[in-house]
């Protein structure tokens, strides 16, 4: 028992170190990806290809003055970074990277993850309220509204996933994907999980609660130095969590085609898949403009939540009536395609309407000109 505890403690310390390294790599990767998407070079000065830039940034944040506003609610202001970071770190205790490569392989692992990841919302609201700043209060409330709205699709998608292997244990879920990854059985689930996950982390198309142009950093407006660095750390840890969960729940985890069965191969497989998902998330950030808050809330409540229930219903019907795998995959794919087409039409409709209007005007103008000439 005591030996187990000591081993766990050492593993958790290793986890902190590994996650810090992952966050540094993600910061570098994000800046490089965005730069490439915008035809820039990105950081190039500190270290080869700017590899040491995140380290330099972290050091700079540590030696910056930590300003606390005079009117701030000091206990709340001090505790908020902890309340945001600790839950997003604790869930890593149960995330496996290979068959027997987790600190604890909990029987209710997925439930533990869902339950703990919600706690960070409290921290963000605390930060907003404790800062004694109008924008911070507004941002904190917005974050609460956004995060609870996008929590529901995530929960529903997770429930649809645990129905397939009849287990909440992450290792069992991944082992259930030996034959066919759930991304092929439930493409709709993967799409909902990614979109809601990006919103849950508050990354760019959904970063309404710290949008610079609206609430100027939202709950984090008054934070500086080490306190702000903790929020930054938590954001990137959360991003990586969503990516790893997508890899484990949908992309087959450590099952890697055309490779031998070994722990290190599985570890590498999960890592490669997670970084690919992270790249997609960064790609979103480089491509899509930020949503307005009413668009964001209607997208959550009128699109993602009904869709997640459709996904749930399809899976339940597939299991209960013993339908073939093909029927579930095709039905899910069909719903995904229909939704994607509808969203595409809705997004391009204003531009199309304007273009048609202009064209009609130009045609009318030309008609007038030609009749004049006659």
């Amino acid at each position: 028992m005591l030996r187990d505890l000591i081993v766990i403690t050492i593993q958790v310390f290793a986890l902190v170190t590994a996650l810090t390294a992952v966050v540094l790599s993600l910061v570098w990767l994000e800046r490089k990806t965005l730069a490439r998407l915008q035809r820039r070079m990105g950081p190039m000065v500190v270290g080869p290809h700017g590899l040491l830039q995140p380290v330099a940034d972290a050091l700079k944040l540590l030696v910056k003055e930590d300003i606390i506003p005079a009117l701030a609610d000091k206990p709340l202001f001090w505790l908020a970074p902890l309340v945001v970071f600790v839950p997003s770190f604790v869930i890593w205790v149960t995330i496996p990277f290979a068959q027997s490569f987790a600190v604890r392989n909990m029987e209710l692992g997925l439930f533990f993850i869902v339950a703990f990841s919600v706690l960070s919302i409290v921290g963000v609201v605390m930060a907003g309220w404790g800062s004694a700043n109008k924008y911070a209060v507004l941002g904190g409330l917005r974050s609460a509204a956004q995060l609870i709205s996008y929590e529901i699709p995530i929960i529903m998608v997770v429930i649809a996933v645990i129905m397939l292997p009849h287990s909440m244990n992450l290792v069992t879920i991944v082992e259930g994907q030996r034959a066919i990854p759930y991304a092929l059985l439930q493409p709709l689930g993967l799409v909902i999980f990614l979109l809601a996950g990006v919103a849950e982390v508050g990354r760019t198309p959904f970063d309404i609660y710290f949008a610079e142009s609206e609430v100027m950093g939202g709950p984090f407006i008054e934070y500086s130095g080490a306190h702000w660095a903790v929020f930054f750390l938590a954001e990137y840890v959360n991003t990586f969590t969503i990516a790893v969960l997508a890899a484990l729940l949908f992309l087959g985890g450590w099952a890697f085609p055309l490779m031998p069965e070994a722990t290190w191969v599985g570890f590498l497989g999960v890592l490669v898949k997670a970084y690919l998902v992270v790249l997609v998330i960064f790609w979103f950030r480089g491509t899509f403009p930020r949503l307005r808050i009413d668009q964001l809330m209607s997208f959550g409540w009128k699109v993602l939540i009904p869709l997640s229930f459709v996904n749930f219903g399809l899976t339940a019907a597939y299991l209960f009536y013993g339908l073939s795998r093909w029927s579930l995959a095709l039905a899910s794919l069909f719903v995904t395609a229909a939704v994607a087409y509808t969203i595409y039409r809705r997004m391009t409709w204003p531009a199309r309407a304007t273009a048609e209007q202009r064209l009609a005007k130009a045609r009318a103008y030309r008609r007038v000109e030609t009749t004049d000439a006659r």
Partner: protein
Amino acid sequence: MLERYALDWAAATIGVVVGVLAIGVMFAASAILAPRRPSPEKGIPFESGILPAPYQQSQIHIRYYIFAILFLIFDVEAVFLFPWAVVFMKIAQIKNDAGQLIYSNAVANAVFYEMIIFIAILGFGVAYAWRKGVLQWR
């Protein structure tokens, strides 16, 4: 089994302690390395460089409250759905000590349709809220 759960929760507790410790080290390093020169100007709430209006914590609009209530409905539903999703296909196979099946097929079917009815009632509630325009952000 019991020891396993105890170790699971011990790991979670150790995770919390180590997380707090890591952040504590960071704050301590910052406290030692960073300068600290407070001034009245730095303590003013930031409002784009203009002196802040007299009240700091604004009133809260009612719409946040409505969304919170809607969320609560779905969250309670999720509490029922999680255990259901794990066992609903297995319920017809549960055996007692003598090796006999406990539940008949009719019960196993009822377990499925009951949840469908439960979700349908909730779905009706959401449809009503949608129709009433509650889901529209104003």
